[in-house]
C-alpha cells in the first residue's frame, strides 16, 4: 500500500464515475454532481468519490491508507526505555455530508457536518520497547540486544463510526476546488498484548499496565485536506 496504489485508484475512479448521468438542473447547479477527491491528512493518503445529491446533502465513499512509525526514548520510573511505535491503518469509508446553511452565499454555505463510518482492513499497531543503553546486573554489563525486548501488539475494531466538520469549496477554479475536514473516528478500546524476548521473556507483570495504557488510544483524529476534481 503506497502512493502508487492511491493514484492508480484515483485514475480508475475518474474513469468509473464518468458514466453517471441523470442530472437535475437547479439554480445551484446540476445534481447529482459527481467529483473525485484526493485526500491527505492524519488518516493518511486517500481517494474519495463524492456524489452531491442536492444542495445540502452529499455522500462520499473512498479509501485511506496510513503507514506510520515513530520512535522516542522515554525515561520510565527507573530505567530509560527506547520506544518504537509502528502503526498500519487502511480503511474504506462511507460519509454523509450535510450543509446546514445553503442560502447565505457566504462562508457559512461552505460549512459541512459529516457523519459516517469506516471498515478498517488494517488497523493495528505494534510497539517495541527496549532498554536504552547497557543494563548492569550488579557489575555485569548486559547490552540491550542481549537483554531482549518487549513487544506490544495492539488491534482496534474493524468497523468504526466517524463524526466531523469541514469546509467545502474554500478555493475553487472551474474544474477543481479545495476543502478540509476535521473530525474523529471512534476506534474503541483496543486489544493489547505485551510479550518479551530473551531475558525479558517472563515480563508478564507489565502486560496489564500496557493494556491499560493502550486503552486510552480510542480516537483517531482526522485533519484532512481535499483536492476535488469536478467531473
Amino acid at each position: 500500500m503506497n502512493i502508487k496504489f492511491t493514484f492508480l485508484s484515483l485514475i480508475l475512479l475518474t474513469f468509473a464515475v464518468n458514466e453517471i448521468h441523470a442530472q437535475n438542473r437547479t439554480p445551484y447547479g446540476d445534481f447529482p454532481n459527481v467529483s473525485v477527491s484526493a485526500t491527505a491528512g492524519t488518516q493518511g493518503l486517500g481517494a474519495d468519490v463524492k456524489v452531491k445529491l442536492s444542495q445540502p446533502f452529499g455522500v462520499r465513499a473512498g479509501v485511506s491508507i496510513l503507514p506510520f512509525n515513530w520512535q522516542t526514548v522515554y525515561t520510565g520510573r527507573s530505567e530509560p526505555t527506547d520506544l518504537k511505535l509502528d502503526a498500519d491503518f487502511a480503511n474504506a469509508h462511507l460519509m454523509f455530508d450535510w450543509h446546514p446553511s445553503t442560502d447565505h452565499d457566504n462562508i457559512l454555505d461552505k460549512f459541512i457536518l459529516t457523519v459516517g463510518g469506516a471498515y478498517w482492513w488494517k488497523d493495528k499497531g505494534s510497539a517495541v520497547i527496549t532498554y536504552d543503553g547497557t543494563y548492569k546486573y550488579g557489575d555485569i554489563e548486559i547490552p540491550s540486544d542481549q537483554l531482549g525486548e518487549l513487544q506490544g501488539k495492539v488491534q482496534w475494531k474493524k468497523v468504526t463510526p466517524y463524526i466531523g466538520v469541514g469546509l467545502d469549496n474554500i478555493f475553487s477554479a472551474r474544474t477543481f476546488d479545495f476543502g478540509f475536514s476535521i473530525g474523529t473516528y471512534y476506534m474503541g478500546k483496543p486489544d493489547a498484548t505485551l510479550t518479551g524476548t530473551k531475558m525479558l521473556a517472563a515480563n508478564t507483570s507489565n502486560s496489564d499496565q500496557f493494556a491499560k495504557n493502550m486503552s486510552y488510544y480510542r480516537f483517531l483524529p482526522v485533519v484532512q485536506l481535499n483536492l476535488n476534481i469536478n467531473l
Partner: protein
Amino acid sequence: MLNSCRNPAYNIDVLFDAAVIKYKATLLVTDAKGATLPALNLTISGADAASIYDFSGTKAIYAPGGIITLGVNPNAEPTTSKSLKFNIVVKANGYEAINVPMEIVNGQVSQIQEVTLLKSTDNTTASTVISKTVGIDATGATTAAATVATVANANVATTTTVSIASGTQFKNAAGAVLTGSAVGVQLISFDAGDPASLSLFPGGKLASNNVVMPGSTTPTDAFFIPAASTNIKMTVGTQEVKSFTTPITVTTQLDPSYTMASTGAPVKVGDQLPIYSYQVETGQFTYESTATVFSSGGKLAINISTSHLTIFVAGEVFATANCSDTKVSYAASWLSTGTRPVDVEISTNSGKIIAKSLVLLSDKLNDIFPGLPGIPLHYKVIDANGETLSTGDLANPCAGNSIIITLTQPSIAIDNITLQLNIVCPNKGIILVPNFDLYYKPAGAPATAYNILGTAAKGLIKTTLLKKGSSYDFKAVWGSQVKIVPNRTITDLDMSTTVGEGLDLGKNPAANNALLIEACKSLN
C-alpha cells in the same frame, strides 16, 4: 495518529529475568572445630578469574556467615571444549590461608565445595600444632642446634620434627637475611590417615591442576595420596621467613595404615616417596625430592632436607592430565521431584578416603567425579541421616566412563515438601525472585547448625529434608545480605506462599513482610 494523553510505556518498568547468571558455585566455609569464623578476605585468581562474580552480579565477592556464592558472567560460560578454571584464596585473621582451585565444566550449573579453615593455634582431630621461639644472635644466626616438634595426642599419633643447625640464618622472600632476637617457629603436623585431614589438605582436596612434576617446569593435573603432610611457618619479628642459609631437616612420621596404591602393599622401610612443596599464594605444588622410608622409635618416617619454607606433602602422586572424568547419573525415583543433600565418598582399595563431596541429589541428576587418579577406587553415597544409600567400584576412574548410581531410599520416612515464594510488589504484580541457596536448621538450634537445604529456582524449592509438623529456621544469602526467617513450622506438604501488600501475609506476617519489603526495595 491516535489521540491519547498516555504514553504507551507509562508506568512500565522493564523487569529482567532474575536468572541472569546460570552457572553457580557455592563454597561453604567453616572452622575446623565448628567455631564462628571472623570476616573472610577473598581473592579470585587464575586463568578465568575475570569471568567470576558474586552470584548477585557484583565483582566484589561476599561471604556472609562463611557462605560464598559465585556466579559466571553469562557472556563467558564454559563450553563443550573449554571449562572455566580459577582459584579462590580464602584468608581470615588467625587462620591458615587456603587456596581452593575451582573448575566449572559445561553443564555443571551448580556445585558445592566445603572449605575448612584451620585456626593456626588449634589442635584438631586431624592435626596438631606447636609454636616455639629459637634464639638468634646479632647476625640473625642460631647460636645452637634447635629442634621443634609437635606432640602426639589421642587424636594424632604421628609427629613432625624440625631440626635447625647452629649458625643457620633466615631470609625473607626477597632473600635478605632477617635479624632480631628470636625466630618464631609454627609447626603443624597433619594425620594423613584421618579422613578429616582431607579438607585440611592444601586446596581442600587431593586433586590439583597446578602440579610441577619431576623433570618438568610446566604445571599439570595430578592427584595426591598423602602419607604425611606438614605446614611450617617461621617469622623474625613481623617478617615471614622463606628460606635459610643452611638446609633444615624435617622429619615427619607416616600414616601407619598407609598403603602404596600402586602396589597394594602397606608402606615399609625402604619404600620411596616423592616429596612436594606447596605455596598457598600460587596454589602450586612443586616436586622437591624423593625420600626413603625409615623406622624410628617403632614408627615409619621420612626426612626432608630443605632450604625453603612451605607446606610439605609426602606420598604417591598420580598424573591425571590425560584422564577423562567419570560421568555419573544418579537414579533416585523415591525422591520424586524433591532434592536432598548427600555425601559422596571415594576411597582406595585399602579404605583410605581420598575424595569427599556434598551433592544436592535429585532424581536423574547428572554429575562428574572430577580429577580422580587411574587406580581402582570405590564410591559410597551417604544420606544426610548417616545411612549408606549406594556403594560401588570404579575400575578405572580415568577412562571417562558413564555410570548410573542407583540409590536406595533411606529407611526414615520422607516428606516431599514444596516451598514456593512469590512476591507481589505494590503496583508491580508478581516479581521474579532470583535463584538462591536456602539453608536450614531446626528452630532454635545454634547458628553453626545451618546446613544447605537446596537451591530455590525462581522461588521454588522441593526438598525431602524437612518433616511435616517440625519447625525450622531458614536462611538465604544474597550478595552481602543474610535473610533469616525464623521458626517456620511445616504444616503442609505444600508450603507455597505469596507475600504482597494487601495480601494475607500468612502465619509469619512479620517475617513475610520483611521479605516483601526487601524484594520490592530494588524496584522503587
